[in-house]
């Protein structure tokens, strides 16, 4: 996919972005029909161009996407990144209305580990499930994408349910020299189950591995995107650990696991935001912006006309589009539908050639793909929420609070 044809440029820091600029993020979903995970925020152009997600998306995307800044605190993907995934699956994973996610490049003080003591420092844990689930796996900068039993993370040997004994289950990293840590990021293990996921936790530090100071106590989200927790500095300490007190999963005894753990020296500028989908309106609009049950003209948009798809994609400022290029060269929307947050009005709508289609309560609004069916439905359609297909899918939006 070429870079979005805006007059802006790729930025590696979100805080530098102006409207029309874009920002790159990696997205990897190895299983068709399942949500993947976002990582590598703020990658540079050479890295991104070597591994872009195709403009028509993929059932199993594994590469970089561009996020175009369209408004204060709002970035919209330049493509539908993943097709053949249902609205229901996206909704169950929170990315229709929004799930928290870390939105900025951050500094991990731990190097990319390739064993418990390579290249430096020492990774430890109270126990391991078996060989292959060693603690260094959580510091290997490789995230688990394949559900339950991959070996790209650490898993404890303690198969218990509910609440654990105090400080009984932990994973730690000992730095060669003391480090001042101000936050952590956590990626839970596995995408398709709450089994193995950590709930109540603390972050502790120590100089000797015997006396521990608690610097943070919290409840981790069971969601599968990277989560951020920051705290006040207590000074440089040699050993830092993540201590788990309870499981999210209570169905049966289970081990605890972590896909990726980072100890941060610098608190990210942006911090936490959310990933979600666009709003798209509920039915066609007429010239005056009122509701219309008939497709009249794409330029009238959908009702309510302040929906995000019309506002930010169809009405992207023309002065920010490169000369000779179109909106499709930025958002790649002419041949792909985007799942939106909205549910279709439960009524019969009529195309420009007088064919009709009736929505039920299970229909969700799709936007884009204006050339489909000879263009008689414009760029709005709707589909049952459990439907999947190669021509419609997930176009992520990143929203964060911008000062």
């Amino acid at each position, binding site marked *: 996919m070429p870079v979005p044809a805006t007059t802006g440029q790729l930025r590696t820091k979100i805080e530098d972005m102006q409207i029309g600029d874009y920002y790159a993020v990696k997205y990897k979903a190895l299983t068709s029909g399942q949500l993947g995970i976002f990582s590598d925020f703020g990658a540079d152009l050479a890295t991104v161009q070597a591994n872009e997600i195709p403009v028509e998306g993929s059932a199993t995307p594994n590469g970089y996407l561009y996020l175009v800044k369209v408004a204060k*605190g709002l970035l919209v993907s330049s493509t539908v990144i993943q097709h053949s995934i249902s609205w229901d699956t996206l909704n169950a994973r929170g990315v229709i209305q929004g799930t928290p996610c870390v939105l900025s490049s951050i500094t991990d003080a731990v190097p990319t580990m390739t064993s418990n003591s390579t290249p430096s420092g020492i990774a430890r844990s109270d126990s391991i499930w078996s060989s292959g689930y060693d603690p260094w796996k959580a510091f290997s900068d490789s995230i688990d994408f394949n559900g339950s039993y991959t070996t790209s993370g650490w898993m404890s040997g303690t198969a218990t349910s509910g609440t654990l004994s105090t400080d009984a289950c932990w994973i730690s990293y000992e730095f060669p020299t003391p480090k001042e840590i101000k936050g952590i990021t956590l990626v839970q293990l596995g995408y398709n189950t709450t089994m193995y996921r950590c709930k109540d936790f603390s972050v502790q530090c120590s100089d000797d591995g015997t006396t521990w100071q608690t610097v943070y106590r919290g409840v981790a989200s069971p969601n599968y995107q990277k989560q951020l927790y920051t705290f006040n500095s207590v000074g440089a300490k040699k050993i830092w650990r993540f201590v788990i007190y309870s499981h999210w999963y209570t169905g049966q005894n289970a081990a605890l696991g972590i896909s990726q753990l980072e100890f941060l020296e610098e608190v990210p500028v942006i911090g936490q935001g959310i990933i979600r989908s666009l*709003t798209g*309106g509920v039915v066609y609009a007429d010239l005056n912006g009122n509701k219309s049950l008939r497709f009249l003209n794409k330029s009238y948009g959908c009702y*309510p006309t*302040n929906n*995000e798809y019309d506002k930010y994609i169809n009405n992207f400022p023309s002065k920010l589009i490169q000369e000779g290029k179109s909106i499709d060269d930025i958002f790649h929307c002419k041949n792909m539908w985007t799942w939106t*947050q*909205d549910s279709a*009005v439960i*009524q019969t709508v009529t195309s420009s050639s007088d064919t009709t289609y009736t929505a039920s309560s299970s229909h969700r609004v799709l936007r884009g793909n204006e050339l489909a069916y000879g263009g008689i439905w414009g760029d709005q359609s709707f589909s049952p929420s459990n439907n999947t297909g190669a021509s419609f899918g997930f176009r992520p939006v990143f929203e964060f609070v911008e000062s």
Partner: protein
Amino acid sequence: MATVGQPLTSPEAGWRRYDNTHPAINYIGSWGVESNASAYGGSVKKVYQPSGVNPNEYVEFKFVGTKIRIIARTFSNQGKDAIELDGVKTVVDTASMGNKWQTLIYEATGLENKVHTVKFYNETGQYTSGLDAIDIDSTGRLLHPDEVTDIADLDVGKRIRCHYQASSGQVGVFSGLGQETSDFIPPASSATPNGDFYWICCDIKNGKKILLADRNIQHSISWDKINEQGMTNTGREITF
């Protein structure tokens, strides 16, 4: 002519009465309700402080106008009440007024026509008198302590009044932002609302103020009907 210390069971000409249950009257702490047919609106509210005066239990409201009267249930065994009008404190010995309902316990007139703040609390003893009603100018208006009348003045925690009217099962019309149009929609909501409510400012994000209604403004309406108007996800623009 009304006399302080004597009952005043209805507002005099030029005055308007607000019951103690009015949403603009903000009760901080544990205020008990005493129901009695002799009370205006059927009940009064008072605070019980057996361990001495508690500065964290008080009543606050604002009003626009030039005069105010406080109506209360007085009783011979209760302590003294404190009333602060724009920060100026007056102590009222309501016990000396005897055992009465709807007693005029406090009056201030000839004020500048502007927003005034009122605080009511226990000064001595275990009980306040039972707060029953507030009379102000018939052309005046009672305001919640956090209430603003211009959307530009909204900050997190502040509120603004609005009117909503709808037919049963249909999305209705919002109007009168910042104005007092009518009484409030009941807290238990209504199938055919025609009343006021507060928007409470809960967040300010990227320059947008997020306002949440302080009650369900309409019941017996389906999600589908609300969605038809684009009010579930996209959000419909409304102009006041």
